[in-house]
Structure formats: C-alpha cells, structure tokens
C-alpha cells in the first residue's frame, strides 16, 4: 500500500511526465508531411452570394440583384426573376454537386467534389477584430487581446517545429498565446517580399561565417541567462530562434521571397486582378515554399469584402476573384510534386481552411450596402474532410444560424471553436490542448 506521501510523490511525477510524454506520443503518430493553408477573407463576406445563396425575398432577406450588384464581370451570374425590372441570380449546382452555390463562387465551383462547406456558423459578434480572432482562435477577444493561439500557430506547434518556417502569416490574423514552443510563433508580415528584404545580407563587409559566430554566441548568452532566470520561456525562445536564423539565412531563399521572381515562376495566378491581384503573390509563395518543404503553415488574407455602402456592388466580384485564386491554387498544387513523398502530389497532403470575420446583413442598408451580421460560413478543402458536403444551415427568413446537431451542451448551431476542434482532431491533435471550447463534429470528417 502507498502511504499519503508516496501517493503525492508518484502523482506529481506522473503529472509532470504527462505533458511532454503525451506530446511525444501524440507527435509520433502524427503525419509530418502535411501542409496547411489558412485564408482569411478580411472584412466579412456576403454568404448569400456564394455558400448560402439567396435569390428571393423572404423574411428580411433582400437578395443580391441587378439593382445592387454589378453583374457584368460575374461569369456565373444568370438572371432569375425578382421584380418586374430587377433580376436576381440563378442558383448554381454543377452536375454531381450536392452543394448549391451563388455566383460569387467563380471557378471554385469546378472543385465542388473537394469542398466541405460549413454554413450557419454562430459568431456572436459583429466586430471585425473580435470576429477575426474568434474564427482564427476559437475565443473572443478580451480587452482587445487574443486569449488563445491561432490555428496556424497550433498546427505549427504540433507539426512544424522542425521546418525552417513553421508558420508564415501574410496579414492572416495569427496570434500566439499559451505554453507553445517559441519556434511556432507565426512570422507575421505585411507582404512576403518583406521577408526577402529582412533576410538579405551583403557580403562586402563580413562573411556568413562571421555572422554565424555572432549568432552562436548570442544563443550561448541566451542559454546562460535562461539558466539563471526565474522565468526562462522568452530566453529559451530567443536561443531557439537564433538557431533557426542560420537555417533561414543559409538556404538561398531569394527566389522564395522575391515577389518579382515568384510572379515569373508562377505566371498562372492573376496578379492584375482588380481586388485580389496584389495578394495573389501569397498563393505563389505558398506553392514555392511548400514545394521546397520550407514551411508547414502559410496564412494569408484576401481583402475587399467589407462593403457597407455603394461598394457592395463589387462584393460578387471580390468573391469571384478570391475563389478564382483559390481554385488556381488548388490546380497548381495538383500539378506540383510533394517534396518528400515520391509520386504524390502536393495537393494530396495540403489542407486548406478558408474563413472570414462574419457575414453581411440580409437587408440592404440605406447606403446600398450590407453591414455586419453574426452568422458565417467556412470552407475546408482537405482529404481528411468529407468532400462535396454541406454542414449546418441558417434561417431562411433571417439568415441567422440554426441548430446544427445535438452537442454535449444541447442542440445548437456549430461555432468556430467546434470547427477548429474538428480541424485539429483530423490530424490527431487533441483539441483540448489548445481550445477551451468546441467539440469535434465527426459528421465533417471523412470516415
């Protein structure tokens, strides 16, 4: 029999071991050849134009129509009767598709057999920063500060620590919180080209070996300070990040981070598109960096969705360009070889999550636009998720999230924490390691 003291000693040892051991065990069964793309449609998209299409007046829903939308550039827009002189659009359902789209889906409609669509996401917020953080972290902001790590940091922490760049974030709402490895801190930049300029080094003053000696000395200094420190997390991180620096500088990465070279290497992306052209280089960077096995996660933002006024007329075009870009990205991943798995395509091991802050109101406001609304949709393109599948729904008259299923806390709509928990679980990452809330939705996962 154990006495009380022994019991406490053994329990403490077991608890102390549970963290690292559990992680080591979990990591051993996780795949390390997977790549992740996180795309944020910044500003809040109008779901009635693509994922949850509405083409008739019902309840408070005023559909997109020739009265409020520039339909000319929208390739999939086909008039459907609304009023005597105003037309809405016809719903789009490609042959074989179980998903019904609006015309904003653009060329991504051709990939319906890979899409897993989540509708009726309950956001409980209409604030841009809060909605953005809720979508990316599963937690609302507290005092303007993210309380949890974003999904790219979570994945980087689990699967990307050995990569040169565990997580690169070009305006994706990345955040770092909690007891994660400091190498998983997303490298946040405005443009990927900035990374190239930061990594440029001149040879006319000193040689790489001399710079490496300084970096090695600094790692040593950080270790020595960490050994004396009460709280050593930041100093340990400093030493690790100094270690990563040599890897980043030694790889001859000019082509990966030079925007002009990326555009030349990947001409298939539309860099001149009106709304997303400037951000298309992020897609080129994604493919180049994954092809070279440099990154684990790339996050970037697409913009132009926040259309409160007359600019709502362009919402459909903004969406069309965004989804065209994603479609082109998928097509490119299809034709690019996986860097470590012989005979496999990059797209076989690439997982895409597309999210937004929230959706837009079903009504048209006095300025001719749509404001913020606490409903949302999300899109997953991954071999681990059910393809050609829609989960969740919204109210036909008010566009508010409807109960999706019975969760452990009762019937309710699906929410971002559930989606993120499901995403993590698809890669054998225990969601509770990162998420306070949320429940895995097995219905979304491929059996």
């Amino acid at each position, binding site marked *: 029999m154990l006495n009380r003291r022994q019991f406490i000693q053994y329990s403490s040892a077991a608890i102390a071991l549970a963290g690292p051991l559990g992680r080591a065990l979990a990591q051993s069964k996780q795949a390390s050849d997977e790549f992740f793309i996180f795309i944020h449609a*910044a500003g809040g998209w109008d779901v009635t134009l693509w994922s949850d299409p509405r083409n008739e007046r019902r309840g408070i829903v005023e559909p997109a129509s020739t009265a409020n939308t520039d339909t000319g550039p929208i390739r999939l827009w086909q008039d459907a009767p609304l009023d005597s002189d105003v037309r809405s659009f016809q719903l789009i359902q490609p042959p074989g598709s179980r998903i019904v789209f609006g015309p904003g889906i653009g060329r991504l409609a051709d990939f319906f057999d890979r899409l897993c669509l989540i509708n009726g996401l309950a956001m409980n917020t209409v604030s*841009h*920063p809060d909605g*953005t953080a809720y979508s990316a972290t599963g937690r609302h902001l507290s005092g*303007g*500060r*993210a309380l949890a790590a974003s999904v790219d940091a979570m994945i980087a922490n689990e699967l990307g620590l050995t990569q040169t760049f565990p997580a690169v974030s070009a*305006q994706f*709402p990345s*955040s*770092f919180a909690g007891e994660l490895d*400091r*190498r998983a*801190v*997303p*490298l*946040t*930049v*405005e443009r990927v080209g*900035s*990374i190239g*300029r*930061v*990594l*440029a*080094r*001149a*040879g*006319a*003053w*000193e*040689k790489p070996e*001399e*710079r490496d*000696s*300084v*970096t090695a*000395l*600094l790692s040593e*200094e*950080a270790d*020595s*300070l960490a050994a*004396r*420190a*009460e*709280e*050593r*997390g*930041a*100093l340990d*991180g*400093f030493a690790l*990040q*100094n270690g*990563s*620096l040599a890897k*980043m*500088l030694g790889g001859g990465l000019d082509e990966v981070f030079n925007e002009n070279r990326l555009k030349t290497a990947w001409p298939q992306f539309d860099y001149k598109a009106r709304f997303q052209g400037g951000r298309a280089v992020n897609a080129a960077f994604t493919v180049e960096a994954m092809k070279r096995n440099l990154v684990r996660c790339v996050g970037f*933002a697409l913009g132009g969705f926040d259309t409160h006024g007359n600019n709502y007329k362009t919402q459909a075009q903004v969406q069309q360009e965004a989804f065209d870009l994603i479609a082109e990205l998928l097509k490119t991943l299809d034709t690019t070889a996986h860097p470590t798995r012989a005979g496999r395509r990059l797209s076989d091991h690439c997982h895409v999550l597309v999210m937004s802050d929230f959706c837009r109101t079903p009504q048209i406001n006095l300025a001719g636009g749509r404001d913020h609304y606490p409903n949302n949709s999300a899109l997953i393109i991954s071999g681990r998720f059910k393809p050609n599948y829609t989960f969740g729904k919204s109210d036909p008259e008010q566009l508010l999230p409807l109960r999706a299923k019975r969760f452990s806390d009762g019937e309710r709509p699906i929410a971002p924490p559930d989606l993120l928990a499901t995403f993590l679980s698809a890669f054998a990452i225990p969601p509770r390691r990162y998420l306070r809330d949320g429940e895995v939705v097995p219905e979304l996962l491929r059996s």
Partner: protein
Amino acid sequence: MRRVLVLMCFSMCFSACRPPALIPPGATSQLPPSHPPILVDVAPKEAPRLLPAEAYVRTYMQLFGAQTLLEAQQKAKGKDGNQLFDNWGDYLTTLGFPDHRNDLPRARETNALMIATFERLGIALCDRAVERDFHAPMAQRIIFAFDPIDPIDSSQFAERFDVLHRTFLGYPSKLAPPGRIDRYYKLYKDTQTKHAKTRLSPTEAAWSAVCQGLIRHPEFLLY
C-alpha cells in the same frame, strides 16, 4: 412588567452615556539584536519581455547619431544602395509594430523573422559605426569611443568592451554573468584571425562583430 421595562430603559440610557473605555498603549518591543533584517523581495516576477517596437527604433536612431528616421536611413544606406539597409517600411512589421491598416496587432513575442530583422539592423548599425568612428576624432565617436589598438590583450579588450557594454546594455561588464567578457574576447580574436579581405580590416570586422553581439543581445532586446 412595566417596572421591568422602566428598569431596562434606565440601564440602557446609563450604559449609552458612559464615557468610552480607554485602552492604554502597550509597551513596544524591539526586535532582538540577533534577528536578521527583514528583506524586501525585489526579484522580478514577470518573464523577460519585448519593449514596444517604438523603443527599438528610437534607440537605433540614437545609436546611428540621427535625429529623424530618414536621417538614420540615409546613414545606414550610405552610398551602397540596399546592401546594408533598405528602408524602415520594410522592417516595421517584422520589428513588431502594429499594422492598423490591416488590423494586425503589435507583436508581443520574438519570432525568428524578428531575430533576422534585429540582425539586419545590427549589422547596418555596427558596420557603419566602425566605418565612421574609427576615422573620426575621439570626441565625435558615438559607439566606439576608444582607441582600437592591435594587438590587444584580454585586459585591454575588457577595458574597451566595457565601453560598448555600458552603451548597449547600460551597466558595467564586470557585473555581467561570469564568462561574458571571455566569450566576447574569443569572438573578437576568432573574427580578427579568420576575417577574409572585405571593406573592413580584420580589427574593424572584429569590433563590428562584438558590437553586433551586444546590439542583438537578449538583455538589449528584452527587459
């Protein structure tokens, strides 16, 4: 019954009017002389953390000897195009500044790219400082306010290293954790010995390396 009530009222009135009881102060006792003084715990209770990025930029300006960002940029670039420095706009996000246009918050932790930015800026600052200071009168030197003798022994190095240590880390090098002066002396000697021909002489390259090792030091960047 009435008599009891009257008696109770009288007793209550008398007790309420009584003057307050005075409690005389007790004798104070001194701590016995053998008792050790009670120490106040002044140890930091928060982990080392980053300063706001503005503090780094202002410090870099001061160390470049510039009044404005543009002046610092011109001094860092010199006549060498973008070899040592591009422009501040390329570094602001990676230094951790918030991006209000894109709603990106201020960075609160270092990341590998931030470390790379600190290196890029540190190289520019130290190489330009070496070029400037070692050819200027002593009174006009900003960083290297000493005579870079060659050859140099460990005590002569320590004396000069102390000048840099105070400039960058704000305290005498003798108070640093043990081994620091030796480590930097080794860096100096190794760089000087191995330095191939560049724009900098071996001695200049060695002092530049020491300078870089201080401006990128965790104690410079974290507090």
